């Protein structure tokens, strides 16, 4: 009994799977890829040339003048032609075929760039199409060092990126990267070659901090961390380029530094807010990193006594580690102080009116 029930269940399950598969193939049908601007012929299944069919696109009837027997002809297709085309045999109206038309372009030569921000561990390459192809396009990447093929690891997050380990250091053999773009309408490739050193570009320094120096109106102490992606700063040290300017000026001051992740700016304008950035480079090879995220800081200022009293009254919250420049604070304080006087005067006036009123009554 149990065997009969089990068998029956299997048969039912199999039937469900088959029906589902049939329905799915009917719904999706096949995909037909065609070039933008071309004339397209869609064939309804394997019907005879004198068969009579009706075509629908996304459920709507297609005009009869585009139909020749079992064929649907579309002239100069565009992206708007993308749709699900269904054909039904006349007169019964049986669904015979479904074709998903996808219009696109063969891929142009991909644009490929390679960079090492983790020297001496390895490098990565990224690529993209200079113009969209509008249809699914795959990429094959191969890398050689001299005549030796290297292992390429796909990035787990970025689709168009791969990673390669440096097989050796100080090599004069070039690295050769070939990226082939392939889709249903064609393929193209890009080949680039470079040496070990020319692609080295660290990530920007991190955690840039600038603090005022107490009792010194012209100094700012700046510190930063090495980029966390740089694996071995002991043996492959970085040098740094610091730039800073007051917000009110366009001209940057520059300082190049080696062997240190800190610097004291000693020529800041007193009371002015500064914008500061740092870049990094390997001491011997490659190019400078992008600039770090910018930070703002103002040198230390002595806060005048009368302003301290006003500040305490209005309870202005400090948003920067350094005291705000007096040019900003007095205005804010005056405004806040001014509005307190107004409130007190108003209260006095109202009280006076009330007293008068009461007396009059």
């Amino acid at each position, binding site marked *: 009994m149990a065997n009969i029930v089990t068998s029956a269940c299997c048969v039912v399950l199999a039937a469900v799977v088959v029906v589902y598969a049939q329905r799915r193939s009917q719904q999706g049908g096949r995909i037909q890829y065609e070039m933008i601007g071309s004339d397209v012929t869609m064939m309804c299944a394997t019907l005879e040339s004198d068969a009579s069919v009706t075509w629908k696109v996304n459920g709507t009837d297609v005009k009869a003048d585009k139909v020749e027997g079992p064929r649907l002809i579309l002239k100069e297709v565009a992206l708007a032609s993308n749709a699900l085309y269904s054909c039904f045999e006349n007169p019964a109206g049986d669904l015979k075929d479904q074709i998903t038309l996808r219009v696109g372009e063969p891929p142009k030569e991909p644009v490929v760039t390679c960079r090492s921000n983790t020297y001496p561990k390895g490098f990565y390459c990224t690529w993209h199409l200079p113009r969209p192809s509008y249809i699914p396009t795959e990429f094959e990447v191969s890398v050689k060092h*001299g005549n030796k093929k290297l292992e390429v690891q796909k990035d787990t997050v970025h689709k168009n990126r791969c990673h390669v380990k440096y097989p050796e250091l*100080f090599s*004069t053999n070039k690295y050769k990267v070939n990226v082939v773009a392939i889709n249903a309408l064609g393929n193209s490739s890009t080949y680039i*070659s470079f040496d070990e050193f020319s692609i080295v570009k660290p990530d920007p320094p991190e955690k840039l901090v600038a603090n005022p120096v107490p009792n010194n109106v012209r100094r700012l102490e700046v510190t930063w961390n090495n980029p966390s992606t740089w694996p071995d700063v*002991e043996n492959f040290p970085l040098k740094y380029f610091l730039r800073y300017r007051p917000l009110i000026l366009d001209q940057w001051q520059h300082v190049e530094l080696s062997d240190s992740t800190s610097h004291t700016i000693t020529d800041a304008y007193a009371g002015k807010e500064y914008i500061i950035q740092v870049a990094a480079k390997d001491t*011997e090879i490659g190019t400078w990193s992008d600039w770090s995220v910018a930070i703002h800081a103002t040198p230390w200022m002595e806060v005048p006594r009368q302003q301290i009293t006003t500040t305490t009254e209005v309870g202005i919250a400090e948003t920067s580690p350094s005291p705000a420049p007096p040019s900003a604070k007095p205005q804010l304080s005056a405004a806040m102080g001014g509005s307190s006087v107004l409130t007190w005067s108003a209260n006095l006036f109202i009280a006076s009116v009330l007293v008068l009123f009461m007396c009059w009554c």
Partner: protein
Amino acid sequence: MATGVRHDAMGGNISFALSDCYAKAEALARKVHSEARQIRESYREKQGLSPDLNLDSIAGVPESGTSKWGELTEEERLTENAVAFAAFHSLLGEVLKEQQDDLTPGDYQFHDALLSLLAKVEALAESTKQLLLSLGYPLPRAGEEREEKGLPYFEKKKRGYKVMVELCGWALRAVRGFSRLKRRNKKEEEGGKREVKKRGSRR
């Protein structure tokens, strides 16, 4: 005066002297690298060679690429550098002669540049040997005398280019090596000074 203080002072002096040697060797290697790069490009242009020219077939030129640089001991790094620069001193001499006699006979400015580089490479080879001796390491055995082979015209061009290319690689490798020694020595110096200060403060 305690013996320990004198010993620390001498140790400090030796460390300082070594630090100075490392810094000078690093600076010299950096100059060689910079000049070799410029001459490499000049050479390639003058000889009409493609940057992608395959030089694999050229033998007898030390190749700078290594998969084990991080694993080598300081002695191994210095020894390999010393052997390489001695070889390049000899090879550059041959390249210069080929340029003078055959490949660029009238280009005296180029010959002078090569001569200047040759002198620096000789100095670098010598500095590296001195460092080996200072650190108590044995000197590498002198290489065998190279037989000057008469190469065909195009092979001379290619070999000369390979000499310049690999010299660039070795010079950069030497910069890294000396820089590493310098930093390590500086850390040891600072550690030694802290130790002396501690002993001083305990008295």
